[in-house]
């Protein structure tokens, strides 16, 4: 019975896959709307010169607003799972018992400052070439993960107010900018930046986001990796 079901599912999805491929090959290019051209023609009004950033933070900035909320939400879900535990720097003790990690530690001390620099650079160039808050945040987060793995940075427990502030800082900046623009510059219009100050506002938002995204992404790892220690502590 189980096997029959499995076979059925596989056949069904094989058919679906083949249909998908056939459909993709058959498809005519769109003739009515040419969005990428519109992006290029409106690029000047967006405040940035890199099209992807323009889409991400201006044309479809609303998506991004919701998306960072999704990220925070996932972190909330993670936090709800880790429960209360004391913040203890067991990590170093736990991991450094393995000698080869000493090498890693040395490497990390070299690499992390570099990564922070890279994040800053990515953030800055995002306006005119590939890069931006997400990539910068991800690099920051990766730095955090490395620090944790090498035992420098302990795993996080229940966040205190300062960490919480850091986690939502960028999101609040985003919301505040949106609200401020709506009250001051273009009343009743959501996320409609005045073209003159759009670049500045986007950079402001991106800076906030870089910090918070970095913290949130790092948090996904740092909060989770703690429960091995928690089990250790229980024993």
């Amino acid at each position, binding site marked *: 019975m189980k096997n029959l079901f499995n076979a059925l599912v596989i056949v069904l999805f094989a058919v679906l896959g083949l249909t998908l491929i056939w459909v993709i090959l058959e498809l*005519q290019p769109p003739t009515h709307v040419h969005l990428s051209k519109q992006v290029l023609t409106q690029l000047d009004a967006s405040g940035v010169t890199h099209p992807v950033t323009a889409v991400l933070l201006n044309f479809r900035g*609303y998506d991004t607003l919701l998306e960072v909320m999704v990220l925070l*939400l996932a972190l909330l879900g993670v936090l709800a799972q880790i429960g209360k535990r004391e913040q203890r720097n067991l990590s170093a003790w736990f991991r450094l018992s393995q000698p080869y990690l000493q090498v890693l530690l040395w490497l990390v001390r070299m690499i992390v400052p570099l990564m922070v620099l890279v994040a800053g650079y990515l953030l800055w160039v995002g306006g005119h070439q590939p890069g931006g808050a997400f990539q910068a945040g991800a690099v920051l987060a990766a730095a955090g993960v490395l620090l944790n793995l090498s035992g420098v940075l302990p795993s996080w427990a229940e966040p205190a107010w300062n960490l919480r502030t850091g986690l939502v800082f960028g999101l609040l900046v985003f919301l505040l900018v949106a609200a401020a623009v709506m009250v001051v510059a273009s009343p009743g219009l*959501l996320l409609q930046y005045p073209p003159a100050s759009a670049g500045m506002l986007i950079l402001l938002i991106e800076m906030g986001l870089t910090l918070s995204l970095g913290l949130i992404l790092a948090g996904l790892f740092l909060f989770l990796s703690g429960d091995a220690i928690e089990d250790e502590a229980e024993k």
Partner: protein
Amino acid sequence: MFDPIPWLILLPLAWGCLAFLAGVGRGGRLAFAGLIIQLALTIVLARQIAMEGARHYAVGGWGAPLGIDLYVDGLTGVMLLLIHVVTLPLVVYARAYFSCQAEGVGYFWPLTLFLLAAMNALFMSADIFNIYVTLELLSLAAVGLVAAAGSAGPIAAAVRYLLVTLLGSGAYLMGVALLYGTYGSVSLTVLGPLLAATEISAAVFLAAMLMLTGLLLKTALFPFHFWLPPAHGSAPAPVSALLSALVIKASFYLILRLWFDLFAPLVTIPVAQLLGGLGAAAILWGSVLAFMQVRLKMLVAYSTVAQIGYLFLLFPLMMLPIPEAAESALQGGMMQLVAHALAKAAMFAAAGVMVLSAGKDDIALLSGMSSHLPLTLFAFALAGVTLMGLPPSGGFIAKWLLISSAVNGGQWGWVAVMILGGLLSAAYVFKVLCQAFLPPVAGVKFKPVRRVLEWPAFLLALISLLLGFRSGEILSLLGGG
């Protein structure tokens, strides 16, 4: 003129962030205050819709297809009003509930506020990719809430729920990708006319299929209902109420929207019949399983499975060639949606109080509840009246409209299903009531509960009951947009 639309999006997000900032278990008061403000905004918006009709709102001022468009019409207005009216009593309830039982309170408030934000954004969105993001926001918030209770049962349910809902979103997003590939836009306002004007390619068929299947998965229509009862049945009661009353309605709303706005050129009667048939199966199967449950909250959760079925009967009925029949089918379906949301919130809230008082989720322990918590039981019964579709509830008006649509179209099969479904729901509702009327078992002690826990359920049930008398307003708002 003051425009509440952007505030309805920004404010709940801000509440969510602030509630998180406030810390563990905090934010109840903020939620209450925030919801009152939002309810006021929603009422303003509904009045605007009623007077000026549907309208578009271009976020960022770019306008579709470059930017993201929002769209509000009567249906949006009804849904927005509904979620705020349902949530406000539940906020009061949840504050009292978590003061009795701290389990699961952790990040309840920010999660709930984000849930609301997601629904607000979802109902107003007119951009299928933006809808994908709101769907994810909604799903992750819902899963986080289910898992917050923090024992093995709820977590297993939450994992299942998460995987199912991710699969659903995946299928939906694949559909979006295909549509973008075909037409070069993700805006409903652009796509709708394009679909109607051009020849439909196979890709669009496939996209429609994927998107609808994904949403059906999230709506838990039979046979995709397997994840719902454990998730809704094992979450803390305020969460169950929110999920059962509102969250599944969000994906149903999307189905409705896509069905009529986007895929209207390619819906056929057999597909509609198929959806109706699944709905009918859901009604019968869900009701029977609800009756067989031994846990109160599982019973209520299975009742949701059954009640969802009614919503899907409107698809075949809408295809009837008689305009009046089609119209009353839509009206009936929407009334069912509204009435069920109110009643199910009331029912879960009442069930939560009873479980709290009995100490364990077991129908057999309810003996004597009628003298211990008469008000809560009364609320449960009133909510049951709506689910059974008995007058004067909103559920009755819904059933009246649906049945009259089916009768006018000569669709006797659907009539039989609805009648039978009503009787079956009476069976499971009265299973609980009968048990509660029995004299208490010797030695069983009920814990006293705070009075403030009892009133929200009663209020919600009362609204769902009296809704029947005000259904004219709801339907005129629905038609006005």
